[in-house]
């Protein structure tokens, strides 16, 4: 599927619509509805500045959801997102305490820590055949423990470096926040990998039937492990960007990203059983979730209401198009 080139869409509109996933179309339709609802609440909701701000906030979730999508396409799940995000952010900030070299390598070190968490997940899932939700919960607990021990209950060095702040809030191209550019770059690479490389094909193959992929000569275990490592790295990178955005790292900063990242992927039409889904859908899911959050906060909905609406929306959307086939 090559729905990335905007120019090509207009030329073959009917074919594009025919080929499009109904889930992706539903997600985009929901985005339009949300925008209309939002504009009723506030005049400024449709202004370019506000929308760009939303896109910037969405890009943090977008980066994290990209990794989650790769794992979900395999038919697995990564529940270690909360503390991968926090570990990435905290380790990047911590590295900055070690002189100029530390500052220069801060972002790399943060991502490296996320990749390490991902590799442990990958070894557990691919080589030790432990169910992914269990091993990722366990690594999540271990990284939480490591972070608690490291900080010792207080924060030694928790302010973000200039580079991190620039990545998250700066402008290289006037008018377009850097975070959005980063998300676009990562998204483009992801689309390329998924649609144009053997790795991407192997990911879809494993998601459909790992046995068949293995018998066709794919080193499925390596593919699974790489996917988990990438997911960990992207979660940590999301954490680094978040730390740059808030200009500091906090322990619980990742908690708010587990459910939204899974929801964004699933609402975008990627099958939770693996093997089916497009990146365009994930983009739609991320924007949908961000707009939903934004509207709920414009309506001054308390945290409790937000959680309830989240859960209900996800279950409702899943019931619409995420159901498993009946056992017959």
């Amino acid at each position, binding site marked *: 599927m090559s729905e990335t080139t905007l120019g090509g869409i207009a030329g073959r509109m009917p074919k594009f619509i025919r080929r499009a996933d109904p889930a992706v179309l539903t997600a985009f339709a929901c985005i339009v509805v949300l925008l209309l609802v939002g504009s009723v609440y506030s005049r400024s909701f449709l202004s370019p500045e506000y929308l760009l701000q939303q896109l910037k906030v969405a890009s943090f979730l977008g980066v994290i959801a990209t990794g989650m999508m790769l794992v979900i396409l395999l038919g697995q799940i990564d529940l270690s997102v909360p503390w991968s995000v926090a570990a990435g952010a905290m380790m990047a900030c911590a590295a900055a305490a070690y002189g100029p070299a530390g500052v220069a390598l801060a972002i790399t070190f943060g991502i490296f820590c996320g990749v390490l968490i991902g590799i442990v997940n990958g070894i557990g899932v691919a080589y*030790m055949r432990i169910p992914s939700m269990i091993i990722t919960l*366990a690594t999540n607990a*271990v990284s939480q423990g490591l972070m608690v021990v490291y900080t010792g209950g207080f924060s030694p060095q928790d302010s973000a470096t200039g580079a991190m702040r620039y990545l998250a809030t700066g402008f290289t191209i006037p008018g377009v926040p850097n975070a959005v550019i980063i998300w676009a770059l990562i998204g483009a690479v992801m689309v390329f990998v998924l649609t144009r490389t053997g790795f991407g094909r192997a990911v879809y193959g494993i998601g459909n039937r790992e046995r068949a992929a293995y018998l066709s000569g794919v080193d499925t275990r390596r593919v699974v492990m790489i996917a988990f490592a990438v997911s960990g790295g992207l979660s940590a990178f999301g954490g680094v960007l978040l730390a740059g955005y808030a200009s500091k790292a906090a322990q619980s900063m990742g908690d708010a990203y587990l459910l939204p990242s899974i929801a964004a992927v699933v609402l975008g039409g990627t099958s939770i059983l693996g093997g089916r889904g497009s990146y365009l859908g994930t983009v739609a899911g991320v924007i949908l979730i961000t707009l939903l959050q934004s509207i709920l906060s414009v309506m001054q909905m308390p945290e409790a209401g937000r959680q309830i609406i989240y859960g209900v929306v996800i279950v409702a959307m*899943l019931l619409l198009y995420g159901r498993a086939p009946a056992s017959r």
Partner: protein
Amino acid sequence: MKDWRYWLAEQRGTLLALGIFIVMFVIYTSNHPAGFTANVVQTAANKGVLLAFVAMAQTLVVITSGIDLSVGMIFLLTNCLASWLVVGTPIQTTLGVIAVLAAGLLCGAINGAIVIYGRLQPIVATIATGAVYYGIGLLLRPFPGGSVNEDLADALTGRLFDLVPASLVVLLAVVLLIWVPFSRSVLGRAAYAAGSSETAAYMSGVPIRRGKFAAYTLAGLLAAIGGLFLTFFTYTGEAAYASGNAYTLFSIAAVVLGGVSLFGGKGSAIGAIFGALAFRTIGDLLFVFDFDPLWQPLFQGVILLVAVSLGAFALFRVRNRLEWFL
């Protein structure tokens, strides 16, 4: 083979968990400054029983080869509910307890309905319903507070005849009244059968849907009993996100330690209870040996990681490489 050998093979996980628990508890009490006294046992029992109820709830779902990531949140929600309802005269208190248990049943039934009749993946469905339950809990108790009938609370968290912790007696009663009848009923067998091979069970005409639904619903009830006990210990209700998540996580650790297979169809809630007690005792060992409490989350995480990795030993028995991929 003789009958007792079959029995031994079936109960191996449970017996192993019992063994781990006894060893850990002996190490714990022998190094505890106060030693093996009724007070130490009572405190340990009260802490352990909370996790034991949640772990039993998790077991019921895991046996059907599902997973319930909302048990911790049902536990929190019922805690918040109990801090409103379980107060006043004995009659009011009784009605309150019934209402709290009914709420737990309802939460479990909703999970079951979504997973079985809605045909959604248990992981995602229960994460989402968990968010809803947490939200409702937060709505009930935006700030920690509330109260509970203290006579009842003290009776259930105290000691019977000044010797046996009352909470252990309640745990035993719950096992005898809920787990034993369930596991010996047709529905319980259907839950086991659905866990070990859903297709085969379906083909044999086993009522798998009803069995799984009963398992999810009873899981909600057991989590609610846990929530009720949390209220009895703390006298308050609190919707703490981290605590709900921790209980979900620890319940999985307890289930694994208790010899329940995460692939379903194998294990028992009694094993999970010993797993929960062992997990709590291991966590508390740090305090006895005067470690910094900061290390506790890491220590518990590592135990969980090691416990789930033990399952990988089954790979050595795999003859055909295709059996890697279930």
